[in-house]
């Protein structure tokens, strides 16, 4: 199986399992524990090799799968020892539970998909602000039942929307702002820094400014360079410093002024 998809493309271990079930054309009502466990672990190992941070939820699921797989290889005990530290867990039950969990998750995932299409359609429709007709309104606010009153939350929301609206009132300026730091330019800068240094640079040294846009763009630039094999990252062990080096692809990369038109 190819690892075109990375762990961050998944919403969690259940999502990853559903993906495996789909690509391996497994019957979700009859999951082959050994096979799915192997594939799952394989996936996680590869992610770790790629030095992508694998969240703890994925590891917990890995442990559950391994436990289930190994119990299935063992004969069922004839007498259950209720007093044992770890009471016997019937692997078949675990398998059923997992199946139900996957089925339940899958139906919400499908529901989410249909919401997504509703959202996309709705996001294309625009309206004006309502006219202020309040001078015609006559009401005693305190007579309004509590359930029908605006809340502090409503007020904060109105306030937020106002701030965003004001920002949007100068849309052309905002657009120019956004272009100040194109990813392509930042990719060039990272490459130049590395070439000038002639040795690997510590990951955090590449982030020269502390503002959010700069950090995000630099990070995306690094990802892009990794994808193009122009740089690679190394880390000796967990939590150690990450070092970025020039890769094979660096020489082939066109670093002309407009090379990266993002």
């Amino acid at each position: 199986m190819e690892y075109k998809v990375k762990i961050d493309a998944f919403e969690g271990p259940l999502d990853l399992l559903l993906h495996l079930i789909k690509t391996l054309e497994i019957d979700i009502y009859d999951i082959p524990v050994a096979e799915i466990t192997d594939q799952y672990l394989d996936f996680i190992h590869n992610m770790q090799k790629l030095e992508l941070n694998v969240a703890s939820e994925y590891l917990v699921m890995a442990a559950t799968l391994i436990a289930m797989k190994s119990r299935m290889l063992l004969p069922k005990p004839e007498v259950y020892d209720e007093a044992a530290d770890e009471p016997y867990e019937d692997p078949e039950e675990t398998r059923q539970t997992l199946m139900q969990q996957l089925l339940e998750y899958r139906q919400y995932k499908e529901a989410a998909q249909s919401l997504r299409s509703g959202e996309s359609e709705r996001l294309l429709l625009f309206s004006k602000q309502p006219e202020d007709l309040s001078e015609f309104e006559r009401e005693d606010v305190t007579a309004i039942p509590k359930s029908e009153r605006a809340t502090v939350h409503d007020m904060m929301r109105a306030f937020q929307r106002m701030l965003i609206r004001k920002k949007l009132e100068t849309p052309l300026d905002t657009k120019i702002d956004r272009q100040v730091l194109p990813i392509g330019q930042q990719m060039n800068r990272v490459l130049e820094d590395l070439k000038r240094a002639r040795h690997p640079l510590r990951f955090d040294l590449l982030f020269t400014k502390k503002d959010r846009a700069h950090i995000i763009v630099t990070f995306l630039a690094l990802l892009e360079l990794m994808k193009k094999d122009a740089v690679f990252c190394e880390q000796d062990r967990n939590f150690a410093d990450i070092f970025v080096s020039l890769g094979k692809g660096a020489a082939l990369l066109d670093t002309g002024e407009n090379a990266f038109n993002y």
Partner: protein
Amino acid sequence: MTPEKMRSIIEGLLYLTGEEGLLLDQISKVLSDCPVRDITDTIEKMKADFENDDACGLMVADLPNGYRLTTKPFMAGYAEKFAAIPKSSPLSQASLETVAIVAYKQPVSRITIDEIRGVKSERALQTLMVRGLIKEVGRAEGAGRAILYGVTSTFLDYFGLHSLDEMPPLIEAVKQPNEQLDAYDLFYDKYKETVNNL
């Protein structure tokens, strides 16, 4: 009142209320001497006329129990620069899954959502609260008195739904146990009840 006059008044009201939208109920209060049936007929006619007229940039969109005047979808590119109402970026996948679970299972606690998704959903819940798509609807019994969440009417509007009934039914009720089916029915009843209270 002539049908033309009725139509012109409705159009005017739709214009005035803009983003907020106009409830059928409000229209019939303003047009107190017109049968509701005539009002809805007029609006349906208006909808069709707007849609079929290429020289018209507006359309009438449905709301739960009401209507809203919006620009046509093709206008989106032009509209973004001028709309006074900020358009938010689409929800992340995490938020989307979370709000789907809230919509079907409300009232529901964070822990239940975490269990279904197999990952923590705190951040997604926070985003959904801020966007006004979900709200606290109560507290669970028992020790933690966990917060229970439900969807808001903004939720319906955001996803272009008229009511929760329009959400696709969750059919994949797990094979076998009867128990589960009962639970499903029970949940469905509860959900209907919540829907009606929206």
